[in-house]
């Protein structure tokens, strides 16, 4: 037998990016089962069950409409305020659940990770996919309200670019996954971050133009608006709303989408590198 034909080697050396697609493919059944587990078990033994998927975005949109549009008088243009908020929250929620779902990968799975080996990347990936399912449901409600408002006679039509919707979903996922993996890495050693994450996402939402259009902050706070404008998440949210409603004060442009995508992929790879470094020894520090 040849001396060097080893199936695998375990050593202390770490490759920078060690994403073994073949291995992930071999564990695809596990991925599927994790996704299924996440979806099936969340609302077991609840009365309303999957209805909770609807309730959260609807109520948040109602509150946002009350506070931001009725009280603070933020103008959402041709788009009805409620629909505007619902669309922003739907997109934002997907990012948020991807982020929080992956950010505690190591800590909440320490039990399993400490006992058996399987490609660790399966876990964050399964979170992104199972949340995609919830996002899909929420998108259905959004579509429902969309039709309702069109029926009421509001002048909104999706632009042709609606075909780009998978791209936007992908971007939300990749940002959530990338940041989530970075945070999951650091929380194994420094738990402060998981505490920080809760309100940081809350604050980040306000900086990502979720409850207001980008044009509103540009008009009212021109000196600080760059913080929001250069936030790639703002561009995703704004772009998402544009392709849905076909109207926006900040028109769609391809180069913004390109840059946003490039940054997202960059963050994803940084996350992946850190994730790879951590997955091998985190069990000793967690």
């Amino acid at each position: 037998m040849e001396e060097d034909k080893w199936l695998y080697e375990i050593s202390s050396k770490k490759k920078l990016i060690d994403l073994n697609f073949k291995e992930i493919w071999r564990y695809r059944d596990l991925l599927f089962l994790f996704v299924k587990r996440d979806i099936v078990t969340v609302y077991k033994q609840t009365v309303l069950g999957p209805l909770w998927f609807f309730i959260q975005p609807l109520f948040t949109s109602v509150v946002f409409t009350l506070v931001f549009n009725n009280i603070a008088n933020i103008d959402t243009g041709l788009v009805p305020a409620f629909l505007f908020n619902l669309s922003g929250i739907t997109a934002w929620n997907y990012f948020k659940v991807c982020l929080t779902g992956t950010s505690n990968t190591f800590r909440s799975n320490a039990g399993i990770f400490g006992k058996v080996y399987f490609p660790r990347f399966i876990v964050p990936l399964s979170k992104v996919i199972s949340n995609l399912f919830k996002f899909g449901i929420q998108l259905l409600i959004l579509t429902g309200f969309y039709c309702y408002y069109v029926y009421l006679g509001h002048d909104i039509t999706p632009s042709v670019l609606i075909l780009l919707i998978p791209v936007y979903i992908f971007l939300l996922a990749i940002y959530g996954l990338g940041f989530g993996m970075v945070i999951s890495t650091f929380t194994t050693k420094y738990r402060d971050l998981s505490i920080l994450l809760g309100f940081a996402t809350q604050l980040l939402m306000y900086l990502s133009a979720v409850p207001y259009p980008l044009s509103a902050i540009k008009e009212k706070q021109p000196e600080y608006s760059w913080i929001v404008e250069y936030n790639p998440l703002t561009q995703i949210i704004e772009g998402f709303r544009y392709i849905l409603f076909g109207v926006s004060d900040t028109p769609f442009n391809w180069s913004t989408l390109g840059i946003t995508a490039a940054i997202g992929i960059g963050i994803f790879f940084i996350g992946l590198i850190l994730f790879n470094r951590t997955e091998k020894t985190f069990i000793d520090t967690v």
Partner: protein
Amino acid sequence: MGVILKVENVSKQYRLGLVGTGTLKHDINRWWHSIRGKEDPYLTIGAVNDRSSKASEEYVWALRDIDFEVQEGEILGIIGKNGAGKSTLLKLLSQVTSPTTGMIKSKGRIASLLEVGTGFHPELTGRENIYLNGAILGMTKAEIASKIDEIIKFSGCEMYIDTPTKRYSSGMTVRLAFAVAAHLEPDILVIDEVLAVGDAEFQKKAIGKMQDISKGEGRTVLFVSHNMASVKQLCTRAMVMENGSVVFGGNVDACVEHYLKKEDKFSEEKKQVVWKKEDAPGTEDFVLRSVCTKNSDGEILGSFIDNQRIHLHIETEILQTVYNMRLNFKLYNSKEIIVFSTSSHLFEATEKTPGIYSYEVVIPEYLLNQGTYRIALQAGMPGVRQIFHLTKVLSFNIEKISASGTTYTTVLPGVVAPKIDWKIF
């Protein structure tokens, strides 16, 4: 046949104490060394993994320079005390964590029966959990589907298989989990002492299954156990670990013997007692000098294998002539049952003049069952006075390792376990 697994110079370092304080400082220091191309400053220090004394260093080597090879189809037993590094080694082998230095090379997939029930979700039913757990352990859905009936049958949970596992008793959960793990078919199987799960009936089933796996199918197995009987029965080769290193390797019998001798260290004071004149038990006419237990080669031991004779050696001194003096001893097992008692009076002269007298009492081989025993020693003149009565002068351990014709590797029921011949006509 060929080398299927090769472990080269593997070491593993752990940090002691409160992990968290000062890590940032050490991390920065490490990083600073690494960008200048220097060695990790914390790798050079580190105490040997000896739990009996408190380590003075901040880092400890849980494993140090482990080197071994496993041939295809071999069943390697790994034995050692708690804390010898066995579990750490298995963790490295199953890729849960990576070694600090060194390299592990494998030609096959490794799966472990290290921990059962990994990833069980209480809300899922038994059947769903079989799929989930199987997939975590590396099986594909098709593989599990082809074995599911067998798994369910083996677990003995047919009735509850579509009930969420949170409604299971802990025993049922463990049985279901073991059933999944036992149906894995990796190239290299790592078995830790999971045997101690479930009731006696299930244990028997589990051990039988493990023997089938390791014997029948010609698979490579790494077997970690404290049970010398199962190691002897199952393994083709063994190694003994101590304080993070392999201290002995090769023949199973030799390893087991080495280990038992080593393990003896625990009961140093229990296998031999030597009294000083001032505090020796006794009276002005008769004192006890020393007692110890030896094997037939005269080595002082506290752990015996069931095929060894136990020589109880008692040294006494008579200071004034005594009449009708006798020594009695009782052997108690761990359940406080007197296994037997015996007395020297049939062998003693009625009158004993001053001098040193040694007694040797031989407990025959294949008599005692596995377990811990204590010796109560008493001296006196019946009906006149008692000289001393020591309720726990010595204790020793019996390890049952010779096959008794059954696959029963747990303790056989019964106070004694003599070798009984069966004749069948």
